[in-house]
Every structure is written in structure tokens, then in C-alpha cells.
């Protein structure tokens, strides 16, 4: 019986001493952390995608608390709503940013851009890019091995088996930019979603001379400059035989889309144009 009491006493004493040691150590080496960091982190989506440029949501929350100006910070996944809530929580203001979406600037499907060689190695765009310029004659276009699909954490990109090109699901895309970094050909660009999610862009990145580009792909931008001339807002610039539409200046008039001789300019989410439909002549009985 005695042994039991002694054991309990010794262990209790030991526990008490260690607890005291731990208490003083904890006091001495206490890390003072702003409690607001936890609060901000709780408001963030927690995807840890790195789209903001930080290592993860925690690091972004720290940045938000530390930063003097929230305007330079943006969580692409949570968007304006999250940033507004973060600003409210921190008692600051933040300006609203236009929502963005990833845009694939290549339309070189098998029909438009015939394959001249066959690649049968490891299916990765990064590997193909170290070996040669790709299966078609266009050395700028999509390699079609799907590195962007593999890297997307939101399941927003998929390969279209018919065209062999990646397709972005605009409802799922958070514009985190992971695919932009993964693409060795720099085909994917983050562009403004646009009013009513309508946007116009040049779906080509070929910087070769017109004849070379056209020979490699039927829908390549040949740098003819017709779109530049027709644009009433000076939104289109042409560098290295390639047109680029500035989303900040573009007013979505769609004049360039009609003008492009190779159909390289794409419009998204516009209502179908009113086509002149010849109505069948009714024969009166």
C-alpha cells in the first residue's frame, strides 16, 4: 500500500516540476503572433494553390495583416468577395478588381494544323519542348501533352479529345496562374473575364511571317493588320507578325472578328449573330 502512495507522490511531484519548467520556457520563448492572422486565414478559401504569389493561404494572411495597402494583394480563388471580407475584418478598404480567367491562345486542332511528325515519348509538354518544336510545323503552338491539365488544382482544364487542345471551364477557373507557368510555349494568358463574361482575343501566338504561319496552320494570325485598321478604339497592336488585343481598351464591338481572314480572333459568350435566313416561300393552297 505504502509503495502505491509513494509512487503517486513521486510522479505528481515530477509532473509539477516539469509543468513549472514548461511554463517558464513557454513564457521565455513565447512567439507573439498577431491574432488577426488566424482570423484572416479563416476567411481565405484554403486551397493553398499559390495563385496569389505566396507559398500558401497562411503566408498570404500574414501578408494581408502586415501590408499597408491591400490593393496590391489579391486572392484569385476567393475573388473580390473574399478580399472585401478580409478588408472588412482588418478595418480597411480594398478596390475591386476585374475577375480574370485563363485563355488558351491556340486553335491548332488536327484539322487546322496538320501533324507532320509523331511523338511517342513521355507525354509531357516540358519534355517535348526540350526535344523539338512539336508534332506540327508550327513551332509556337500547343504541344498537346496536357501539362496545364495536370497542374490545375481546380479541375478547370481538360483536353478536348477531338481537337487535342486544352479547354478551360470558365466557371471553375480561378485564374491562379498555375497553367500559365506550366505551359512551356506561353500559350495560356490570364485575361479579364469581361462584362457579362464576354471577351475577344487573338487565339494564336505564332510570331512567324504570315506565309510561314499560314502554311503551318490554317487559323494562324498572319499579322496582316486588318484588325488593327478596323478597330475604332486602338486596342490592337501588332508585333512580330502577331496581333494582340488589349483587354483594357477593347470595347467588344466585334468588328475585328469579322475582319480576320484566318478566323484567328475569337469571341466568347456573345449571342449568336443574326444570320440572314432565307425563309422558305410558303405556297398557298
Amino acid at each position: 500500500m505504502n509503495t502505491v502512495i509513494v509512487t503517486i507522490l513521486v510522479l505528481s511531484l515530477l509532473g509539477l516540476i516539469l509543468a513549472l519548467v514548461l511554463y517558464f520556457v513557454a513564457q521565455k520563448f513565447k512567439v507573439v503572433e498577431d491574432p488577426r492572422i488566424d482570423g484572416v486565414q479563416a476567411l481565405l478559401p484554403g486551397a493553398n494553390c499559390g495563385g496569389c504569389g505566396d507559398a500558401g493561404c497562411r503566408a498570404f494572411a500574414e501578408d494581408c495583416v502586415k501590408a499597408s495597402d491591400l490593393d496590391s494583394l489579391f486572392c484569385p480563388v476567393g475573388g473580390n468577395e473574399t478580399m472585401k471580407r478580409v478588408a472588412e475584418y482588418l478595418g480597411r478598404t480594398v478596390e475591386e478588381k476585374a475577375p480574370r480567367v485563363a485563355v488558351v491562345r491556340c486553335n491548332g486542332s488536327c484539322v487546322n494544323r496538320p501533324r507532320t511528325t509523331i511523338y511517342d515519348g513521355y507525354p509531357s509538354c516540358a519534355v517535348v519542348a526540350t526535344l523539338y518544336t512539336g508534332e506540327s510545323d508550327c513551332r509556337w503552338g500547343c504541344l498537346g501533352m496536357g501539362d496545364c491539365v495536370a497542374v490545375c488544382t481546380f479541375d478547370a482544364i481538360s483536353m478536348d479529345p477531338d481537337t487535342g487542345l486544352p479547354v478551360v471551364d470558365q466557371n471553375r477557373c480561378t485564374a491562379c496562374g498555375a497553367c500559365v507557368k506550366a505551359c512551356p510555349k506561353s500559350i495560356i494568358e490570364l485575361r479579364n473575364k469581361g462584362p457579362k463574361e464576354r471577351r475577344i482575343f487573338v487565339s494564336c501566338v505564332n510570331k512567324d511571317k504570315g506565309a510561314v504561319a499560314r502554311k503551318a496552320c490554317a487559323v494562324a494570325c498572319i499579322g496582316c493588320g486588318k484588325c488593327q485598321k478596323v478597330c475604332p478604339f486602338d486596342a490592337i497592336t501588332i508585333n512580330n507578325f502577331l496581333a494582340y488585343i488589349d483587354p483594357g481598351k477593347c470595347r467588344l464591338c466585334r468588328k475585328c472578328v469579322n475582319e480576320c481572314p484566318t478566323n484567328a480572333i475569337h469571341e466568347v459568350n456573345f449571342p449568336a449573330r443574326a444570320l440572314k435566313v432565307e425563309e422558305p416561300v410558303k405556297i398557298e393552297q
Partner: protein
Amino acid sequence: MSRTFSLGGIHPKDKKISADTPITDFPPVEIAYISMSQHLGAPSEPIVAKGDMVKCGQLIGKSSGFISANIHSPFTGTVLSVEPYPDLSGNMVTHVIIKTQEDEWIEGTDTSPALVKEIKLTKEQILKRIAECGVIGLGGAAFPTHIKLSPPPGKKADILIINGAECEPYLTSDYRLMLERGEEVLTGARIMMKALGVDKAVVGIEENKPLAVERLKSLVDNEYKEIKVVVLKKRYPQGGEKQLIDAITGRRVPSMGLPIDVGVVVQNVGTAYAVYEAVQKNKPLTDGIVTITGDSLSEQKNFRLRAGTPFQQIIDHIGGFPEEAVKIISGGPLMGKAVSKLGAATVKSTSGLLFLTAKETLREEENNCIRCAKCVEACPMGLEPYLLNKLARASRMDDLEENSVQDCIECGCCMYTCPSHIPLLDTIRGAKASVLRIMRSRSKK
């Protein structure tokens, strides 16, 4: 007993089916495409313009940096244009396009086949001549020879190794050169010994080339007594610089190091011949021996082929694209590069053109790794390819660097030996490129 290197290696089938074909001259083409980036390092600067008349051996591309080389015209003719043109992998490189006419060499070039043994030039003159004549390594990497022959201060070579291993299957260009131009090759070796200031030189030849061994041995016994001929066991990648040094001297080149760090300079037999022509005959390097081979070809060839000959012209000359062939490789089957543009032209360092059939190029379906460690056994650099493959697929760059992916020589032994047909080299090569890029950007900071 014949020697070999200590780590890894494989024994692919020999397939030297073009070994008995003597070297013949490839006829000049009508329009030649001379690349301004035939060597490792900065591309040369074209110094001719449209409409200029050029002669054989005339300088058309000037060396443009420390690691760069001169480029000379292999043809006589008129410059049609200087413009970007795709190379064999489709990348646009500045080419000088020449409409050719009858050959006429620039003055001061000795084009006679007579052998000149006596070395009249001094060490400095030799190095200058080699640089002027645009001699580059013809063993594969195309590194400018004059830089290799001028070791950096503080480092000194004590032995010169002439690489006649030709360990790749199919290729026979070095073999034919040793057999037909043995004396020139050895004179070239002597010139390089003088340039380096070394008194020892070794020619390493694999045992599957007994005639070349016999020919060079008889020459060495009679006259070139300071040069030794060493017979090596047949094993791939014996022709790799680091493997050859290990096989012949037993020295090990440190990681990310150069052969000069262990006092060795390695030059290919083709380079030795080019050095001979440059120094003794004042003839710039404009051509090379190219093996045209493959099971699907009716005739195997060894051509003396000028740089700038489009691949399509070669195919037309040998009677069209063979029916069974599906893939053309420039170089050997293990380290060569697939030709994706037939309009592209050969360069000085092109060593072979290999026509492969569908059966030979078949890639079996990839299976799971069974952890047999055959790849580890086969790796001549002592790496663990199965691990590098996994890390590469997960893009773990710091772990890849820790596991020395940068030491990979891209020989392909791991992929050749893998029973699960895992594309090890593909993934590792991709990762190696990224790791080297990261290391370079770090060293710049």
C-alpha cells in the same frame, strides 16, 4: 586483357553493317543551307550578304564569343540569302543559303591527298590555326577544339586520349576513318600533343574493330612510338568522355567537372583528322564522315559529306525513302536526335544518318516499376534513374539536384535496360534541363 570503365554500361547489338563500305564523296548539292550554329556555344555571326560570291573554305560565319567557332563555306557559289531556317528539330537558326557551282578552293589551301608528316608550326601557331579553321569536336558535343586544347591557367594536361571507341551501334564513320586515314589521324594526334605540351597519347579502340586496331598498331610500332593503342572491351557508353578516361587511365572526373581537372584531354578521331587538315593543309573544317545505314536500306554508305546538305537530298541520292523505315536519326541510335524536318541540313558534326523501321522504334507500353534496380546497375554515372524518374514526375527540383541529376550524360542505358519500359531518360532529361537552368540562375546572383 582489354580494359573498360568501372560503373554500369550495357551491351547493345553491334549492327555495324556499313563497316565494309569505303568512304566516298557525296556529290555537291545545288542549294546548300549552312547553319550558323553548328557548335556548342554562341552562334557565329554571318559576314556575307545576299549576292556575295563565296569560295570553298571561305570564312562566312565569324566566331562571336569565347565559346564559339568560325564557320567556312563548304561550297563555291552565290549567297542567295541569310535568313532563319529550321534545324533538324525545327528551331529557327540563322542559315547562309548558297546556290552552288563548280568547286574552287580559296588560295593557300592544299587539297591534294598527299600526306604531310612534318609539323612546322609552333604551339601558338597551331592553336591559332585550329581556331581560325573552325575545328570543333566531332564526337557529338561539337565543342570548339581550340578551347579544349588551351587549358585554363593553373590546370595542366599530362595525357591526350584519342577517342576511337565508337561504342554506338550502327555507326562506322570513325572506324572507316581510322582504317583509311590512320596516318593522318595519328599526325593529328601528334599536332595536338604539341599544342598541349604532353608527351603521352593513347588511342582507345573497342575490340569489335580488329582491323582498325591492327592498322593503327602497325603504324604506332613503326613510327608513332610515343602514341599507344589501347584495346577496350565492347561496352556502351565507352565513347563517353568520362567513361573513356576511367577505362584508360582509371581516373574519375569529379561531378560537374571537366576532364582537364584530372589532367586529361579527350579528342575524337574525327577531330584529330580535322586538326591534321587544318594545320598541315590549311584546310578549314567543312565536312565530315557520315554513315548512312539501317536495315531497311539496300546499300550501306560511308560518305564524306559537306555541312549544309539537306537531309532530303541525301535520301534522294540513296534512292528515296525506304518503305519500311519510319524514323530517321541523326547520330547513333542511343544518343542521336530524331530528324523532324527533312528540309533541314547537316552540320559539321553530323556523324550518321540512321533509318529505323517500325519494329526498331516501337515503344512498348509503360508498366509499373518492379524495383529490380537494373537501371541503377546500368547507369555509368552511378545515379539512381528509378528515383530520378519519380522525383522528376513530381517536379521536386531540390531533391533532384541532391541526387545529382545534373551529372546525367543522357546515354539512355537506364531506359534501354528497363524491363517495364519506363521512359526514364525522357523524364530525367526534362528534369535535368530545369535543374541546370535553376543552378545557372543561382550562380548569376
